[in-house]
């Protein structure tokens, strides 16, 4: 499967900008959550940015994804509008879902995002269904479903792998193995130790990748997406990564050590890529700073937009339950 993909500087800077946007959006969301402007729970994607950006950058218009409860990164990587995202987190009428969905249910059908999902594994068969529709309509679109190491123990994943394989569906299963399912280390729950290896039972190729290397993820993602599109065969990618924050904001994190977290923070996908851009690809430090500053401003704009937006109209509670 070795095909070296050359990404030009434009693309590399795009990767960087998207990862920084995710990071700064999540940090802002954390801040607003601590100020009680965001209710319920939020699940931070901090630390995993390279996977969303690497995979989603390999998709084309018309392709589709289903995401997880930890979905802000995927939505931003697909080109989501961070104003409408932040407004949705604050439950405002201007949010992506008119304030009715919240963090775990953001969707933007126009850019192919068929929803974050509050049920672990819930979006998996839906992505296969999207792929099925594409095939039945004679389109050449690909569907990607993101899932975690926790979801890798849901039976529904195996039903979906099986049915996608027998029906030759253009679907990619991207498992973000961040080593912990809520507060349970996957090393204790994943019999056999490897998620990628489980795919072979279904005649599906399973590929492991360093989830913190955005270009490597992009390479593997491109391969799998092209295979889905041209050969109508599914693939399972297991991307190894780490989440910096607790499962949910407020998680006391009794299941891991500060040393472990520190080690992984050294391998920050953004920091590592920034160093490469400057040292290996000769990007000017100023250009990096400009990107970071411009993202800061965009995120500040999203905060302002969300806070100043109105609450939903109470009288519209029952609107859109039925079509």
């Amino acid at each position: 499967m070795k095909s070296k993909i050359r990404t030009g500087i434009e693309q590399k800077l795009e990767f960087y900008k998207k990862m920084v946007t995710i990071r700064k959006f999540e940090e802002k969301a954390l801040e607003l959550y601590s100020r009680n402007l965001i209710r319920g729970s939020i699940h931070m994607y901090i630390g995993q940015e390279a996977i969303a950006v690497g995979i989603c950058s390999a998709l084309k218009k018309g392709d589709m994804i289903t995401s997880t409860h930890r979905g802000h990164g995927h939505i931003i990587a697909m080109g989501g509008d961070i104003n409408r995202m932040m407004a949705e987190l604050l439950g405002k009428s201007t949010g992506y879902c008119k304030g009715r969905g919240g963090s775990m249910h953001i969707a933007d059908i126009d850019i192919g995002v068929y929803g974050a999902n509050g049920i672990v594994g819930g979006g998996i068969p839906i992505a296969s269904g999207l792929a099925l529709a594409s095939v039945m309509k004679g389109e050449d679109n690909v569907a990607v479903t993101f899932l975690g190491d926790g979801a890798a123990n849901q039976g529904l994943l195996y039903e979906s792998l099986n049915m996608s394989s027998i029906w030759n569906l253009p679907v990619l299963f991207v498992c973000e193995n961040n080593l912990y399912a809520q507060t349970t280390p996957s090393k204790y729950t994943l019999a056999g130790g490897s998620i990628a290896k489980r795919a072979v039972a279904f005649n599906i190729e399973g590929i492991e990748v360093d989830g913190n290397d955005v270009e490597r993820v992009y390479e593997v993602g491109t391969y799998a997406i092209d295979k889905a599109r041209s050969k109508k065969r599914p693939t399972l990618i297991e991307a190894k990564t780490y989440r910096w924050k607790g499962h949910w904001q407020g998680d006391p994190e009794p299941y891991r050590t500060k040393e472990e977290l520190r080690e992984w923070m050294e391998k920050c996908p953004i920091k590592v890529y920034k160093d490469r851009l400057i040292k290996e690809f000769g990007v000017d430090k100023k250009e990096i700073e400009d990107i970071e500053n411009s993202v800061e401003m965009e995120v500040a704009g999203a905060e302002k937009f969300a806070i100043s937006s109105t609450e939903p109209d109470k009288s519209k509670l029952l609107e859109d339950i039925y079509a």
Partner: protein
Amino acid sequence: MKEITFAEALNEGIKEEMQRDSSVFCIGEDIGLLGGAFRVTKGLIDIFGSDKIRNAPISEQAIAGFAIGAAMKGMRPIAEFMYIDFMGLAIDQIVNQAAKSRYMFGGKIKVPVVFRTQGGAGRSNAAQHSQSLEAWYYHIPGLKVIMPSNPYDAKGLLKSAIRDDNPIVFIEHKLLYSTKGEVPEEEYTIEIGKADIKRVGSDLTIIATSNMVPKVLSVAQKLEDILDIEVIDPRTLVPLDINTILSSVEKTNKVIIVQEAVRRGGVASDISSYIIEEAFNYLDKPVKIIAGENAVIPFSHVLEMEAIPTEEKIENEIRNFIK
């Protein structure tokens, strides 16, 4: 008019809708060569092919999920669950994904999927193959629930259900499949949300669903010299045509609700509560419910007949009620 069976009526309905709209397809277990466990899709694979009549592995949750994903992307799937007792395997997809996605996403998508199934006792199929579980789906906002009692209603309502843009649980009854009834030669549909007065009367209103309808009609005929019974078949439980029911109660001042399902937490109790709230002053007697016992359906025929309302039981209860 022609006389056909309930199963044939459903078969015609599916066939006509598939001929009319290429986005309609069927997915389920044994629906291809066999034509479905109850022959509802008999012959359809020869007409439409295995792409459109998708015989699936025994994977209820994936069957539901794939159908939901396909529906989100513009197809109109009919997903068959051989027994309503098995739908529990798919319930997360039905309740948490299909029912809620439109609302959670702010009205952006629709999920036009029909979940067809059958239930009911009387054939010694024992506890796990004989239940009437409409109450589970009745309770979930976002779903519509349809329970036809005869071939004419079955075909007309199934056609409408397929054309409806909402997720619909369409519950047939295993003892109704072979019953015959008149159906127009020409095409027709029945509006969802309209009850049908199966027998006009003035002394007593009986509301009945599914296989209880023919039983109640039979008893009504038997008692016609002493009692003029009005029989109402709601046909659709969600949306419920409460107005037709209330008008009847205002006329007769006495009402009995008959359901095969277990009494506890059943739809009859809910309908009863609306009658009491809205038409209390018209009632000469409390609302009476005749329902299945709060029992696990037994295998023994003798015991099974104790667990569900039989014609004999219905007649005795009516006689006691009017004393």
